[in-house]
């Protein structure tokens, strides 16, 4: 596999000055990214997650070349981003969910005309790409609307389209679904999935919404304190996080907590009880054992919450 994005021991240290007393200023350093190494192959779609302040945005900024690493080696498509920012710019697309690159006071289509010129996109290609984005992201009725009148979800879709008109080889998305409703999220996800499948665009996706990752990325990287904590399949996180599935049991009447080998009772509420058991284990033997010994009315199974797994992981590691 050809490594398209390569990081080798990348560091970013920020100098911060803080007021310490009336006139004294204290200098200190924040290691936002601390010896990060990973590679992403061309055509991969990778989730990049971590708690607030983990260093995700900082990594993306270094990958676009707008921040220079304090140490280590970083290459995107064989290019050193910080050194050849403008050359790389034509080959990457970036969406920062909290910022917009669209022209605030002008109709959406004016921003696209700008992209057309900025990236020197051939006319034919531009028309095709725009048509495709308009169709898939449902922008048809928005093209004439000034950007400031767009809702957050509409604007985000507009921004994603703007980042893709020049056919970038890689797309960095920093929280592209932040603040979107369920329908907009679904649209954005479908679009990204197609983009990756049809065009082979490499995608690096940062998000706090794990559903994004579950639906889009086979590979996920977790970082915390600027260090890589996990890199692998999403499913593998369960093992690392020692996660549990939960069986919710409705009994005929209120009973003392169920005692059974295969699981432990974690919660009792009237006739309803919650039984936790390891995610790696099948539910079948537990269900039959339970049904044999207790008056079971109804059962439901809750899959381990990836969110909880990751929260556990963050909490476990950050104390180091």
């Amino acid at each position: 596999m050809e490594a398209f994005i390569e990081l080798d021991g990348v560091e970013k240290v920020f100098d911060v000055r803080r007021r310490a007393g009336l006139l004294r200023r204290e200098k200190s350093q924040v290691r936002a990214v601390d010896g990060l190494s990973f590679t992403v192959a061309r055509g991969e779609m990778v989730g990049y997650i971590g708690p607030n302040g983990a260093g995700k945005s900082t990594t993306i900024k270094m990958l676009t070349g707008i921040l220079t690493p304090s140490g280590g080696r970083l290459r995107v498509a064989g290019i050193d981003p910080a050194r050849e920012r403008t050359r790389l710019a034509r080959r990457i697309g970036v969406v920062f969910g909290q910022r917009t690159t669209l022209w605030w006071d002008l109709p959406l289509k004016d921003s696209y005309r700008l992209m057309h010129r900025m990236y020197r996109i051939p006319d034919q290609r531009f028309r095709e790409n725009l048509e495709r984005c308009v169709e898939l992201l449902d922008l048809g009725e928005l093209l004439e609307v000034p950007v400031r009148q767009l809702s957050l979800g509409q604007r985000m879709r507009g921004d994603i389209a703007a980042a893709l008109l020049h056919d970038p080889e890689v797309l960095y998305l920093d929280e592209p679904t932040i603040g979107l409703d369920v329908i907009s999220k679904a649209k954005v996800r479908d679009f990204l999935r197609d983009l990756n499948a049809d065009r082979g665009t490499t995608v690096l996706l940062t998000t706090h919404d794990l559903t994004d990752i579950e639906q889009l990325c086979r590979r996920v990287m977790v970082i915390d304190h600027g260090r890589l904590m996990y890199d692998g399949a999403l499913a593998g996180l369960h093992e690392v996080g020692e996660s549990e599935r939960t069986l919710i049991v409705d009994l005929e009447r209120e009973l003392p907590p169920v005692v059974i080998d295969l699981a432990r009772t974690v919660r009792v509420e009237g006739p309803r009880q919650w039984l936790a058991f390891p995610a790696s284990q099948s539910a079948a033997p537990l269900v039959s054992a339970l049904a044999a010994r207790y008056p079971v009315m109804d059962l439901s199974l809750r899959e381990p919450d990836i969110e909880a797994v990751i929260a556990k992981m963050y909490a476990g590691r950050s104390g180091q």
Partner: protein
Amino acid sequence: MRLYGVVMVGWFRRYATYRMATAAGVFTNTAFGFIMAYTYTALWDERPQLGGYDVSQAVTYVWLGQALLMACALMGGGFEDELIERIRTGDIATDLYRPADLQLWWLACDLGRAFFHLVGRGVIPMAIGAFAFDLTLPGSALTWIAFLVCVVLGLLVSFAIRFLVALSAFWLMDGSGMAQISWLAGMFFSGMLLPLTVFPGTLGEVARALPWSSVLQIPADVFLGKRTGWALAEAYAFQAGWALALLGAGRLLQTAATRRVVLQGG
């Protein structure tokens, strides 16, 4: 180059969407024009030929000042507010990963804005001024053309100064203080308060040699027909010299800024 054309047109159109703001601005410029024109009339009645102008020329100077005030963004309202804000919030990040040059980009923005303000905020107050007062208007089309060239050069100088001011935000984090100092200096040294020809001695000479005089004093003198032939060429050379020097300084500062750039926020 077409990119910057699109940017310029975009900014022109953007300001054109602020209809109410433009109407209010025209009103303000006109009101100030009247107040200053009456003040100047009183002053020139007392001291005829002050600064080498007669009353009509002095009043013309006032209305020219009002017509150019917004275009040159002498009291703010130019691109710099936005650039400073983008540096402060870190939005500048989205400008830096684009295959476009920061300085040219903002120059195109500011020229688009300035051309709009020249038309939208300049023409009507000037016309009202010409209607209400006895103004000294150019007699020939050539003077008009010479004046417009002069205005464009002035816009370049004005942009170059404000670009330097805005970039200071990379180091100061809050660029609004610098912007205010620069507006104050611009107000005085451009001749917006009083023509620079009025100031005697060293103060006058220094004021006339500073870049700000390119913004109002020189265009006004060209408009009033005080600079023709060699004097006009000299004026152009003076403006172009400052424009090149300041744009060059802006370029150096931009390189330094992007090199040490520390972007704010997540």
